[in-house]
């Protein structure tokens, strides 16, 4: 996997580079702001870009704007936003053009190297990786509408994992149940929410988010 990193804190930039290289990925460039990110992606055409949201010069949403530009100009490059905060509005903007090749993770998630690289690989392959925090925020936002009230706690768990971009097999492993059980839950969720079951993971995520987002 070929990766470009945009992160202004040297400590994290170097740490990420090392982490990815240790796992056998190649880091084409590690830059410190949005413009340099766009230039690096144009030059190296990586599989995925890891983008910090707050970068110079304004330290506000540089990374998000660069990510949106990347999505438009280089749709083949996956974008993983990487931040200390989860902002629902950022999630919405990022997902506007579809959930394929998009990720949004808290920086905390690097603590689990295997899960983090798995998420990055998913995004590089055109999949989705949303932080559990994103999902729970969206859940909270939609709770008052009561649509989720009909789901059992187990189904809600499965829905949350689906929204993170996990496959049925991944969900089964996480919950320590059989694949068949997960399929049954998924079918039940779609039935209760009145959504036709989709074919790919992305469409599942989109369906879930469309429902959650309102």
């Amino acid at each position, binding site marked *: 996997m070929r990766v470009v990193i945009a992160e202004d804190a040297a400590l994290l930039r170097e740490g990420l580079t090392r982490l990815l290289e240790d796992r056998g990925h190649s880091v084409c460039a590690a830059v410190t702001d949005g413009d340099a990110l766009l230039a690096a992606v144009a030059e190296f055409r990586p599989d995925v870009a890891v983008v910090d949201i707050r970068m110079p010069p304004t330290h506000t949403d540089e990374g998000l704007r660069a990510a949106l530009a990347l999505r438009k100009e280089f749709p083949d490059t996956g974008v993983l936003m990487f931040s200390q905060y989860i902002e629902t509005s950022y999630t919405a903007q990022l997902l506007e053009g579809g959930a394929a090749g998009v990720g949004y993770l808290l920086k*905390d998630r690097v603590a689990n190297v*295997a899960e983090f690289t798995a998420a990055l690989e998913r995004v590089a392959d055109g999949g989705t990786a949303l932080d559990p925090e994103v999902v729970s925020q969206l859940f909270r936002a939609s709770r008052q509408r009561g649509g989720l009230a009909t789901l059992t706690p187990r189904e809600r768990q499965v829905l949350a994992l689906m929204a993170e971009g996990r496959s049925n097999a991944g969900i089964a492993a996480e919950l320590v149940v059989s694949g068949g059980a997960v399929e049954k839950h998924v079918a039940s969720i779609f039935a209760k929410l009145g959504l036709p079951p989709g074919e790919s993971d992305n469409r599942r995520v989109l369906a879930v988010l469309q429902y959650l987002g309102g």
Partner: protein
Amino acid sequence: MGEDIRRVTGTILRAPFTRRTVREMLYCGVGGLAGVAGFWIALVLLVFGLGVSASVLGTVVGLLLLTLALRVGRRLGALHRRLASWLLGYRVDAPPKFQPGTGILGRLDRRLRDRAAWRGISYSLVKLPVAAVQVYAICAAVIGLVDLTYPVDWVLFRHHSGGRLNPLIAVTTLPAGGNLKIYSWPGTLLAALTGAVSVIAASWLARAINVGDRRLVRGLLGPTTMAERVSELERTRTLAVEDAAAALRRVERDLHDGAQMRLAALAMNLGMAREKLGDDDEHADNATVRELIDAAHHNAVDALADLRDLARGIHPPALDNGLASALATLAASSAIPATVRADIEQRPAPAIETIAYFSAAELIANATKHSYANEIKIDIHTERSGVLRLEVSDDGIGGADLARGSGLAGLAQRVSTVDGRLDVSSPPGGPTIVTVELPLKA
């Protein structure tokens, strides 16, 4: 009835011996002389300014003189306000700060319409008769005291057994009273009696005239109108709100770029170390693991230091034990040797203590950065009039300017949010003395 008369008489007779009288007298002396001097300064500048600008050729010079008169008027007002606060404990809020306009005409316009300055001049002019009475009161008291000594004087120095009698001359304090010539010891008793009456009368005269002076100070040297006070409060409230918001933003930024970032790096290093350890001990890459854990350890230590600094920046723990101990801690960590003298009789409100502390911290930092001083002195004390006074001085190169140093201006703004004030005295070559006055209650 008889009881009342005794009580009133007692009060009248005891007056000269009270501390209050001493202060009122002191104010008569200092304030009266300052009043006389201020009157002439204001009058000369004003008359020349108006006179010269009336002539065609002298307009420019005249206007310059006039603006000078107005500047001086503001200064004189401030001086008299301070004297009243210092000696009489009579505190009047300062009028709103002068807001300079832009461009030459704009500045001139603002100066000429500076009501506080015109009122300062009015006070200086009206003060003359008041000052005359004040000076008279103090003279009467002094003469009275001298007269009181005559009986003793006679016995010690003038006790002639024969020959020519050298008369003692006692000055009466009434303007048309003339002089008493005294040829005998019993005569000196008369002089002493006049002296006693003078001293008592002078004490009451001082009090009476100072009551009038207080009125003038309040009427002419305070904030003009309720509207001006309201606009001043609105301005400082905006500053206070902005200051609080900026402080929170700063804290968030510091957390984001400091402790949070280091903890993320720490988590990452530990995650990588766990990976390296593998599932069984056989394949562990011990050297790399050790290196990663070292890095994680560094991150943890740095994050702790960041958090400690941040916490101290929000509320210094030493402040819980009062300003004196907090400032001592602050001085101990100063790069330039700093000494603290603290005399705090009444503990200020916590918000005031915090502002005083951070003012001192900022002033020490300023001195360290710009002054090339060898020594910093920090003096903090409470005053009778309910004021906390912080003075930070250094023996450096001076040249600190409220208008140029954005740090000082920011500090002045923060201080003004609680109706405090900040004054800078920093001539080129030094020394620099910055005074911060805060009310004890926010």
